[in-house]
């Protein structure tokens, strides 16, 4: 028997790795709503807060709890509650509070703008293991240029302060676009002032519903992505080296991550998919039970078509961040190359192969 690591992050990663080996669905994500009170140009979900039709399709609190209990019985340990914006649901605590009694490590994603003192107090009484709030800028002008909602910056800051006051464990992150990349340091400074961990993402996907998107105008250039990666991801070189080793060894897995092996996501209308960004196969655990849905998801992942011949022959494959979710969003297939990612792979190759060993 091998010893488990003692540091929390390393322990969780190791447990998840072991779960992947035995196909235990330890990692769940419940997307409680697709609706959001912000209108960020680059967002892949972004449904209007007052979309009644969409709201009516959302699972009820009792349906979420039925799903959670069934998932726990099948081995779920880590659960992310996300949206859209979760606090748009007036019944949020009807879902959240019972979940805290199921033996789950709960994580909450929110934009923070709807976190009132009352919500913060209730979360503080029974806190999630972690809450993550996304910042969209280091100033009100930039933040609100991204979110499209006047006053949202001040409300986000007030939400953060309220959560801190109630001792809710908090981390900040940002989604980098061309509009706010100049305020990355300002946002880091905000996080530091609050004593909070901070991280950034910048790989922007198209809208999941296929509607026209402004994402092309928001995306950083491939060069900017790779430069950011080098400064923001301490393990970037190590990850690329590991991917290159796999490629050299002839490995060409279609799903490289835990999706469908130890992780799943359930969207707001109750469909189960490998991850939040891939809206297939849409199996329904409420109809046939979690176990049958989980098996269906594994079949979907295991039976996925092989890599596109262009990708298989590509000498940049080890540098490429493409996955089935990216292909599905950009090409409608699970395997076709994504030109934006091809350009990132090309810059990575140039950068890492140009570096002295």
């Amino acid at each position, binding site marked *: 028997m091998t010893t488990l690591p003692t540091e929390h992050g390393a322990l969780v990663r190791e447990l998840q790795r072991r779960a992947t080996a035995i196909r235990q669905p330890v990692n769940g994500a419940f997307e409680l709503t697709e609706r959001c009170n912000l209108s960020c140009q680059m967002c892949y979900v972004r449904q209007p807060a007052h979309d009644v039709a969409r709201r009516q399709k959302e699972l009820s609190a009792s349906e979420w709890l039925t799903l959670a209990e069934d998932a726990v019985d099948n081995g779920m340990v880590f659960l992310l509650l996300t949206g859209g914006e979760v606090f748009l649901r007036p019944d949020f605590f009807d879902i959240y509070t019972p979940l805290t009694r199921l*033996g789950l490590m709960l994580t909450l994603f929110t934009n923070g703008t709807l976190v009132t003192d009352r919500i913060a107090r209730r979360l503080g009484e029974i806190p999630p293991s972690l809450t993550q709030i996304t910042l969209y800028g280091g100033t009100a002008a930039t933040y609100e240029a991204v979110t499209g909602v006047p006053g949202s910056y001040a409300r986000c800051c007030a939400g953060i302060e309220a959560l801190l006051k109630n001792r809710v464990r908090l981390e900040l992150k940002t989604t980098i676009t061309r509009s706010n990349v100049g305020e990355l340091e300002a946002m880091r400074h905000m996080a530091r002032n609050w004593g909070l961990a901070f991280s950034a993402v910048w790989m922007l996907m198209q809208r999941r519903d296929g509607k026209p998107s402004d994402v092309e105008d928001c995306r950083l250039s491939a060069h900017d992505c790779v430069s950011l990666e080098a400064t923001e991801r301490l393990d970037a070189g190590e990850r690329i080296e590991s991917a290159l080793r796999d490629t050299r060894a002839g490995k060409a897995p279609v799903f490289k991550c835990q999706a469908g092996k130890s992780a799943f996501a359930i969207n707001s209308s109750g469909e189960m998919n490998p991850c939040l960004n891939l809206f297939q196969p849409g199996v329904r655990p409420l109809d046939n039970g979690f176990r049958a849905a989980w098996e269906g998801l594994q079949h979907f992942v295991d039976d996925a078509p092989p890599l596109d011949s262009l990708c298989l022959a590509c000498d940049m494959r080890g540098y490429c961040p493409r996955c089935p979710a990216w292909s599905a969003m950009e090409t409608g297939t699970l395997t076709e190359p994504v030109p934006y990612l091809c350009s990132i792979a090309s810059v990575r190759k140039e950068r890492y192969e140009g570096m002295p060993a």
Partner: protein
Amino acid sequence: MRSIGGDSFLVPLGVRVAAMPGLVVLNGTGRCMWELLAQERSVDELAAAVAEHFDVDYSLAHADAQSFLDEMAQLGLLQP
């Protein structure tokens, strides 16, 4: 108590999350004692069960049981 494969650990429930935000990993002895603690047990009873189950010396099992109970009490996981 939750498990992933053969690994067992404690996940805090409800208000306990505030005091214990992480996971507590249990080894085989810890898992055995935790399961026994579903009912009220004295340290002597725990030690006797551990000594028998793991075929170890009673005094060693007693020390282990006391140390386990102290740790669990410190984490607020035991009811007096």
